[in-house]
């Protein structure tokens, strides 16, 4: 379970980015974190991953986040970055796949097995020994997801997972996300994708929660979305 208790954060210029944020995410939930640019979505992710620290308390499975247990907490969380180039920093997909597991203490044989397992599950076995710089955008995104799944995280966090993907690859990524059994927290402006993959939505506005509830309910609320500089998902608007 992930819990934010009155979490606030501001950068050095003193402008608050996140203000007294409180919410809970239960194990197995799929939560879409939405909001206009600058609403605080990325900062919430960074706070959750311990990349920045603010006021208030963040608990992961009851463990309060602190410097001392950061490694244990990060082991539980797998973060798929928006730009796969930043995530795939090793020469080949295989080396990226084993990077995390081996760092977290898995033996190389075990990591190898895990890598094969994940690639097979995602139907990506042909990517295993490919060089990262030769992958297409869609392949790179799928490989980035595989890299995170190989770490066996309890929660998968994704930042704009469908950004810059063509419709075909976007659909593949959406189907993959839907099949994931882990707790999922997804930030995106692609509200159709959020509708497809998340059961709950947290709408952020100026660092505060503007709405928190079932995706079906929030993503159909035209007035609420427009008041927060968003639009109805295309799939709903067309109906």
């Amino acid at each position, binding site marked *: 379970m992930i819990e934010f208790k009155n979490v606030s954060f501001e950068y050095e210029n003193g402008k608050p980015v996140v203000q007294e944020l409180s919410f809970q995410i239960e194990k197995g939930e799929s939560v879409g974190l939405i909001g206009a640019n600058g609403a605080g979505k990325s900062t919430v992710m960074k706070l959750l*991953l311990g*990349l920045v620290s603010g006021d208030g308390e963040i608990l992961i499975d009851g463990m309060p986040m602190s410097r001392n247990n950061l*490694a244990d907490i*990060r*082991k539980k*969380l797998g*973060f798929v*970055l928006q*730009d796969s*180039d*930043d*995530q795939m*920093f*090793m*020469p*080949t997909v295989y*080396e990226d796949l*084993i*990077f*995390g597991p*081996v*760092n*977290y203490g898995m033996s190389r044989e075990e990591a190898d097995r895990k890598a094969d397992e994940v690639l097979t599950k995602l139907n990506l076995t042909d990517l295993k020994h490919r*060089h990262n*710089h030769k992958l297409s955008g869609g392949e790179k995104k799928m490989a980035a997801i595989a*890299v995170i799944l190989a*770490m066996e995280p309890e929660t998968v966090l994704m930042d704009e997972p469908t950004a810059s993907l063509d419709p075909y690859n976007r659909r593949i990524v959406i189907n993959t996300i839907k099949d994931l059994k882990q707790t999922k927290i997804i930030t995106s402006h692609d509200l159709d994708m959020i509708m497809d993959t998340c059961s709950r939505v947290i709408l952020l506005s100026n660092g505060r929660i503007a709405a928190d509830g079932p995706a079906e309910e929030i993503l159909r609320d035209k007035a609420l979305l427009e008041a927060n500089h968003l639009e109805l998902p295309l799939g709903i608007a067309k109906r």
Partner: protein
Amino acid sequence: MKREPGNKIEHALHELTAMDELAAGSSFVHSLNPGAKLAAAVLYILAVLSFHKYDLSGIIPMVIWPVLLFTLAGIPVRTCFYKLRIVLPLVMAVGLFNPFFDHTPMFRLGGFIVTGGVISMITLMLKGVFCLMSSFLLAATTPIDSICAALRKIHVPEMLVTLLLLTYRYVGVLTSELAVMTDAYHLRAPGQKGIHISAWGSFLGQLLLRSMDRAQSLYESMLLRGYDGRFHYAIRTKFAERDAVYLAVSAAFFLLVRYGNAAELVGRLFVR
């Protein structure tokens, strides 16, 4: 078709990433222990640097070691020179002024008197080229993470090793940002060659800021996947008997060339 500057940068980036492909080979040289390769490369550089500035005939046989290993690794020597083509002129320029300062006559070649300045210039150039060749050989046959792991094993400070690793990774980041920026610049400055001097300041500033952002993101990505300054994931090969033999043979060769006048020995085979 004429290449646009942006494409040149992308080409350079591709060449850089191609080093990883070279290092992923499976030859005898690739399979040697990274520590043994690192030690041999360091010994080679020390041996090369120890030659006297006038010992041109002595240093020439040192070329055998990298050329032989390039051959064994299945990497054409011309690949090394091609990839180092930008750095080579800089290295070779090191002794360029020696002929102007050192007029000591050494020997006569036809009607010309060859001075100590010319000899020392060529020796210095060869030293630079040989050192680059051995460094390239190491990088082209050993993944960067394995080199870093080997450096840590010989207790090179963690900070320095991390710096080396991140520099290697960030060069790619910096180059790709540069490619995007130069493309964007040339789309709005058609027909202009290079970046106009008036834009250099803001261009470099932007490049630095963007690269720092990307570098930060990349580093965070490493941290989130358990990176702690150690190289658990680097491929480890045990220091085996053949690594010891490789190191011993290499060291013996360096000593022979350095102190045994190999050029004279080879010459005696043909001239009695």
